[in-house]
């Protein structure tokens, strides 16, 4: 099953097109659109016959090529030279190809540099690889949910009719979590819910935590399989607080702070 390998040959439709242009030794500014379209479609067919899962972008490009080809077949009528029709139908495509080629070149140049941990080494090269310390594993959503279930089960059962009018917002909880991390560096998942009294508050805390993970402000991991789940800041605490503030400013502006929960 070498599907992945095959796909990797072409990073996308633009990459495939550049390859065909090079192979045909033609200029990118003057693409023989009929030939290239034909070869492009043949390449897609080949990829399809190899059972490759073709990205939609490849098909969009096929449609674009066919559209350009058809427009080039139309005689350029007098008087119809308005801004849109007057230009070479290939122009936009050429611009995109050139632009992509620039960054392909730039990427190749970057790759030539003396890369840390490939060509050159420094003390603690792990600094570039911000992964959790060895032996730690990332936590799956299922692990998280079962931990959440344990927390909810720990709640006192008797006060079913609690009527609490406090408003707890996800935003407040996010700040709270960051404050805890600022003081303690690392905290266990269940300890985070230590003083939580209601189911709603647990849910809000959980959402706040997920939001922080989504923003990549914190990281959740397990020190061992089925071990305790721990939480730590993924970036500096101040940076994390900054990210929260940024998110905040936007939500305020848009008036979309739909994360507030009353109960």
């Amino acid at each position, binding site marked *: 099953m070498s599907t992945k390998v095959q796909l990797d040959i072409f990073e996308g*439709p633009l990459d495939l097109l550049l390859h065909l242009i090079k192979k045909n030794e033609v200029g990118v500014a003057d693409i023989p659109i009929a030939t290239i379209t034909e070869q492009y479609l043949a390449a897609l067919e080949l990829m399809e016959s190899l059972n490759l899962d073709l990205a939609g*972008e490849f098909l969009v490009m096929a449609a674009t090529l066919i559209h350009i*080809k058809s427009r080039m077949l139309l005689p350029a009528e007098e008087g119809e030279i308005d801004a849109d029709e007057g230009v070479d139908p290939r122009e936009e495509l050429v611009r995109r190809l050139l632009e992509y080629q620039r960054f392909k070149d730039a990427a190749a140049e970057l*790759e030539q540099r003396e890369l*840390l941990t490939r060509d050159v080494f420094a003390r603690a090269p792990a600094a570039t690889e911000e992964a959790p310390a060895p032996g730690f594993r990332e936590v799956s959503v299922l692990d998280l949910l079962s931990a959440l279930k344990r927390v909810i089960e720990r709640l006192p059962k008797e006060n079913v009719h609690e009527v609490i009018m406090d408003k707890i917002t996800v935003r407040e909880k996010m700040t709270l979590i960051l404050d805890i991390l600022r003081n303690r560096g690392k905290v266990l998942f269940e300890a985070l819910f230590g003083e939580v009294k209601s189911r709603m508050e647990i849910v809000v805390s959980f959402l706040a935590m997920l939001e922080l993970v989504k923003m990549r402000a914190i990281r959740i991991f397990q020190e061992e399989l089925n071990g305790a789940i721990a939480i730590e800041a993924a970036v500096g605490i101040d940076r994390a607080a900054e990210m929260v503030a940024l998110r905040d400013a936007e939500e305020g502006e848009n008036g979309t702070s739909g994360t507030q929960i009353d109960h």
Partner: protein
Amino acid sequence: MEQAELKSIIESLLFVADGPMTLQRLAEILDGVDREEIVAVLAELQAELEAGGRGVRLAEVAGGYQLRTPKANADWVKKLLGGRPARMGRATLETLAIIAYRQPVTRAEVEAIRGVDVDGVINALLERNLIRTVARKDVPGRPFLYGTTPEFLQLFNLKDLSHLPTLKEMEEVVLPDAAPAEAAVESAEES
């Protein structure tokens, strides 16, 4: 403080530091020593290590100074460290290049250039701390704007972003023979 002594101290600091040391940090530790003097000593140390063909060299990366092994010794060091060669895929490199040169840039803008979806790649780059969200763009949907991190500079041995290799101008991008567009010829060929 004697110059030789200062050099020795700075070398020790650089040896122990686990990341690039900024001039500011060095000055803080060596309180009282002139920054200019520190810079001079650093330059001297750098030249010495280079000229002596030594096993560590002084590199200026990510706004600081760091001792790094020369490329010529890479294979030996790798043998010591073991582990897999850290190779970067083309998708990763291309996406990183676009973000580096175009920052701050949105996911959609990167996709427009690459012509393919970059969701997975961007997430992986965020995970590796090579890029980060810097703000949100003031357009509908308020998408995140991405930029590179100091870790990016460290990885690619760059002093700062202004040291990125210059991006070629559009006209300079050479694909085999760029002839002027001739729509008429083209359509004649095809009909």
